[in-house]
């Protein structure tokens, strides 16, 4: 593996990390406010379908993105209604929404497009194309190493990739340096304190879950209109759960979530490359072992054998005012 191979692997790691990053940051808002979200997968899937369908019909990737976000927010609002108003079990609500997305996307795709549950292939303006940053070609030609990193790794992604990475400092700022962020964190740790201070626990959770909807919408649109070029049946393939794992791994912190998503992206980029490669001492590693690694790492971390992931204190519990 020479230098440009390494750059290639890192480049595809970045691309694979983007949907995870959107979903992990999305989950961060909801879970920091005390509402478990195992429905990230469903929101990604629903948004991926809505984005591809709207882009195919209207011819604009941006309208697709908008449709994806609207669908994802609607699903998030159902989750908020079940969690806040109905005081229902948040895990069950998440499970239900995952299945709802899995079923509805295929039913509608089949009814609207008749392509075995897929949408038509997207091309041109129906997709988000890559953006070349200024001087990329010159830098690659004239500056060794750094130029190549700039041209290959940093430049040449589509707009959603940059938005995903931009969402990291924004989330960090919002969560730890604004009044809204302070309240969201407080409502996840001790909702009674906020209630006593005269703030509405339910309203804060609704706001946090709304942001979750926006970010999952962008992640889903990325899958079908930027990384891919159509919606296919169950195209998220568990990415929402890997994102959840990344969020836990990052202990519900934005920068750590970014690094974990990049690590998980790197693992899946390496899967293809490591097929059939013999390692000294251990021999050939089955590709499935690398596939399972994010899940195994999360289980180990959750068990507290290495470090400890402590979730927001009131997570998963519906808030009931004392009377």
């Amino acid at each position, binding site marked *: 593996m020479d230098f440009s191979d390494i750059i290639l692997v890192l480049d595809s790691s970045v691309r694979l990390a983007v949907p995870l990053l959107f979903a992990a940051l999305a989950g961060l808002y909801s879970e920091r406010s005390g509402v478990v979200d195992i429905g990230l997968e469903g929101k990604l899937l629903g948004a991926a379908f809505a984005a591809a369908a709207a882009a195919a019909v209207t011819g604009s990737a941006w309208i697709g993105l908008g449709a994806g976000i609207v669908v994802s927010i609607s699903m998030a609002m159902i989750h908020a209604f079940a969690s806040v108003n109905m005081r*229902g079990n948040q895990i069950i609500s998440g499970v*239900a929404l995952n*299945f709802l997305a899995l*079923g509805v996307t295929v039913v509608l795709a089949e009814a609207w497009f008749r392509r075995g*549950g897929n949408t038509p292939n997207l091309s041109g303006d129906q997709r988000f194309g890559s953006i070349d940053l200024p001087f990329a070609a010159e830098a690659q030609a004239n500056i060794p190493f750094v130029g190549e990193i700039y041209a290959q790794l940093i430049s040449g992604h589509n707009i959603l990739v940059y938005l995903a990475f931009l969402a990291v400092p924004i989330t960090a700022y919002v969560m730890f340096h604004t009044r809204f962020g302070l309240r969201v964190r407080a409502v996840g740790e001790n909702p009674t304190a906020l209630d006593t201070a005269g703030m509405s626990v339910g309203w804060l959770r609704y706001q946090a879950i709304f942001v979750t909807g926006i970010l999952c919408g962008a992640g889903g649109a990325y899958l079908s209109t930027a990384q891919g070029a159509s919606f296919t049946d169950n195209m998220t393939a568990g990415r929402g759960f890997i994102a959840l794992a990344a969020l836990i791994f990052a202990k519900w912190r934005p920068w750590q979530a970014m690094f974990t998503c990049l690590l998980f992206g790197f693992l899946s980029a390496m899967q293809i490359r490591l097929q059939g490669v013999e390692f000294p001492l251990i021999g050939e590693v089955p590709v*499935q072992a690398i596939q*399972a690694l994010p899940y195994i790492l999360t289980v180990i971390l959750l*068990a507290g054998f290495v470090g400890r992931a402590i979730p927001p204190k009131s997570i998963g519990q519906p808030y009931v005012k004392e009377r």
Partner: protein
Amino acid sequence: MSARQPLPHWVTAFLMPALNVALAFVIGGLVVLAIGENPLEAVSVLIYGAFGYGEGWGYTLHFATNFMFTGLAVALVFHMGMFNIGVEGQAYVAGLAIMVALAFDQTHWTVVFVTSIITAGVLGAMWALIPAYLQAKRGSHIVITTIMFNFIASSLMSYMLGQVITRPGANAETETIDPVGRLPLLRDIPGLEFFGFSPVNVSIFLAIAAGFFVYWLLWHTKFGYKIRALGHNPNAVRYAGVSAVTVIIITMMISGALAGLVAVNEAVGVQKRLVVGYVNGAGFVGIAVAFMGRSHPIGVALSALLFGALYQGGQELAFEMPSVSRDMVVVIQALVILFTGAMSELFRPALERVFSARSPGAETAKAASESGSG
């Protein structure tokens, strides 16, 4: 708003779940309407497909057998106040029991049946053991660990089927069980020929037995009392000197074993070999089945039958009305989980109004409680 008022038992136990299920089906009907088909016609095709003829019945019962196992597995743990979302993975790993069935397939079907029940049960229980241990001892949330274990199971099994137990020359499937050791189908029993070519087999009796077992365990044993007590009040259980760790681990292992029995019906009984992804979502259907059946074995059996009918009738429906995809069943499943599981209290305010208006006794009780708390 006042605190919850007591409603008659039959309302909370039957009327509210029935309304929730009805709402799920109404919304499902609206989806069918939205894609330009007649929902009533769809329902009649579905019912005919599921119950209209012998073979349809056979398929319905075959699907119901799987859902009975997974539904009981989810329901049992739910009595403990926890959620085993890893039934899919436990059933998948238990599929390895096919190796034992293949080893004994030259003897007699009873030998194959008994050995694969034991192996599938043990394998399913083992796959549930680690998440159970981590929940009980290390406090890691069982929902997250069992989700992770579903994915780990999927990777493990695709490795096993791809490299370890593959039939030579095949891609990702094992050898097929010899006809000598195959489980008898119901249509082989004299008098039951009307089941036609459907795959319903003797495992259905195992599913019924599992239902009785769960009922007996939960309501007629000391251990079952501990399970339910843990679900009601974990602290009380600890103060009573019961080890919650033991209860959690053993209950989860029984649940995993029940999930594992899917392998006996589906892999050993029907497909007669192991293929990639053989569970095909039955573990997740179990979640809907358990909620709809209010985690009671009789309720689980009835909702397993309903979901069996949906799966079989759904196939018929996709054939008769090509624009209604088979995945319509997944939509119904999702809506049932949403309304009976996450929004089970949806109709409570309306019902409270109806019942407090009816009985003057409740009205005075309400007035008393309001003046008391106010």
